[in-house]
């Protein structure tokens, strides 16, 4: 089996112990970090995504794969950044659960999936007021803003947050795209409140963001 296939396999199997050794070995043998990431690790993550969608893999296994990717990125990220490579992280995602809502689990899954797919993720937590979203966007300059609401009673806070972002003209020129999600949130609602994107679940969210950014 080739080195790339081995790397891919560590991700699919969630082999946290093995991935670091293997990534280091690949680098020692002179492979470029972006090749290790793109052709090795990411292709493993794609398999994970497909199997999850087909009910052949389940959340705990996907989480383990994501953690494995995380460990690999700890080695690769400084190299990718320091060498000013063309291939940088795919984008910066800022995530939060809207005001009045303290649900955390779904958002954490989303964070994991984006990280595992090569995005840089900033999680600003739960019960985040519209103003706090605006401040965080100014500070971190993401290109994707993700909002979560798990209650119908807090969904209006999503609309308020979108308004606050537009009120500060942060979405002007399409600099950022807003994606919303959470159990009660529907695609129609996303359109109604003028969110750019809707993620039915964590992996679907990654997919629509990639499409919107023209990745792959």
């Amino acid at each position: 089996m080739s080195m790339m296939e081995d790397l891919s396999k560590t991700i699919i199997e969630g082999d946290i112990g093995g991935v670091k050794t293997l990534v280091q070995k690949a680098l020692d043998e002179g492979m470029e970090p972006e090749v290790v990431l793109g052709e090795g690790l990411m292709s493993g993550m794609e398999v994970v995504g497909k199997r999850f969608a087909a009910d052949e893999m389940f959340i705990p296994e996907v989480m383990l794969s994501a953690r494995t990717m995380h460990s690999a990125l700890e080695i690769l990220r400084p190299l990718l950044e320091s060498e000013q490579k063309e291939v940088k992280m795919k984008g910066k995602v800022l995530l939060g659960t809207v005001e009045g809502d303290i649900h955390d689990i779904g958002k954490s899954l989303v964070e994991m999936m984006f990280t595992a797919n090569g995005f840089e993720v900033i999680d600003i937590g739960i019960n985040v007021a519209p103003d706090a979203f605006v401040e965080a966007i100014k500070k971190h300059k993401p290109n994707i803003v993700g909002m979560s609401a798990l209650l119908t009673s807090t969904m209006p806070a999503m609309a308020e947050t979108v308004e606050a972002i537009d009120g500060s003209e942060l979405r002007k020129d399409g600099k950022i795209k807003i994606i919303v999600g959470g159990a009660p949130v529907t695609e129609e609602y996303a359109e109604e409140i003028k969110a750019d994107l809707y993620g039915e679940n964590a992996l679907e969210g990654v997919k629509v963001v990639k499409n919107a950014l023209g990745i792959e």
Partner: protein
Amino acid sequence: MLIIGELINATRKSVREAVINHDREFIQDLARKQDEAGADYIDVNVATGSGKSEKEIEDMKWAVELIKEVTEKPLTIDTTSKEVLESGLKAYGPGAMLNSISAESGRLEPFLELARQYECPIIALPATDKGIPKDVEGRLQVATEILERAEKMGFAKESFYFDPLAFPLGVDDKSGEVTLESLRRFREELGVKTTIGLTNISHGLPQRALLNRTYLVLAMGVGLDSALLNPLDKAVMSSVSATLALTGQDPYCGKYLRAFRKGDLVV
């Protein structure tokens, strides 16, 4: 063991459509079936996700009125909005259950005022504006605070069912253990009754029914008093009957044998 039938919940797609289209028969049928299957309370959640609170207030009134026509079982008004709660309680009259209060802003004293007015048993969740504590100690602490604030308003602890909140096992593999230990300590240290929303535990895993009913047995083993579950699931209801008998809560195995004769017990 108090069974709360969970099926009339608008986060389920079929129910959401029925609420949006005001399909009376669909909702009444679900209420009737859960009643016949042995639910003691029928949960009513009409949160369709329209994002409009006026709509939800009306939908709650609509649902409560039509469910009342087909069952004598009391209802559980399931909402995080005070206005929707009030709409449901007003439509039902005294004796509905309140699902739920927490230590989040605006969800304790104002909800309890309504509970007092409509003489409701109350489900309480150990959540604050900062979230749900991950560990047993944290949940016990929030539950203690809720109970103290309620007692200050003159409520007796007998009015409450504390739900420690079972997180999906798929996301946190210690969740089952933390929830069981929380249940045990709520009972022992606070002296309150307990309940759980059962099906949360299995979210994202295959063969959910197996996890659900196994977890129910474990929770009943530490003294669970109530559960929100699908009463049309014969396997889970059979587990309830068997566990009650096995834990000395079914004199002369009467209920177990009645269930057997009705053909309700499945292996």
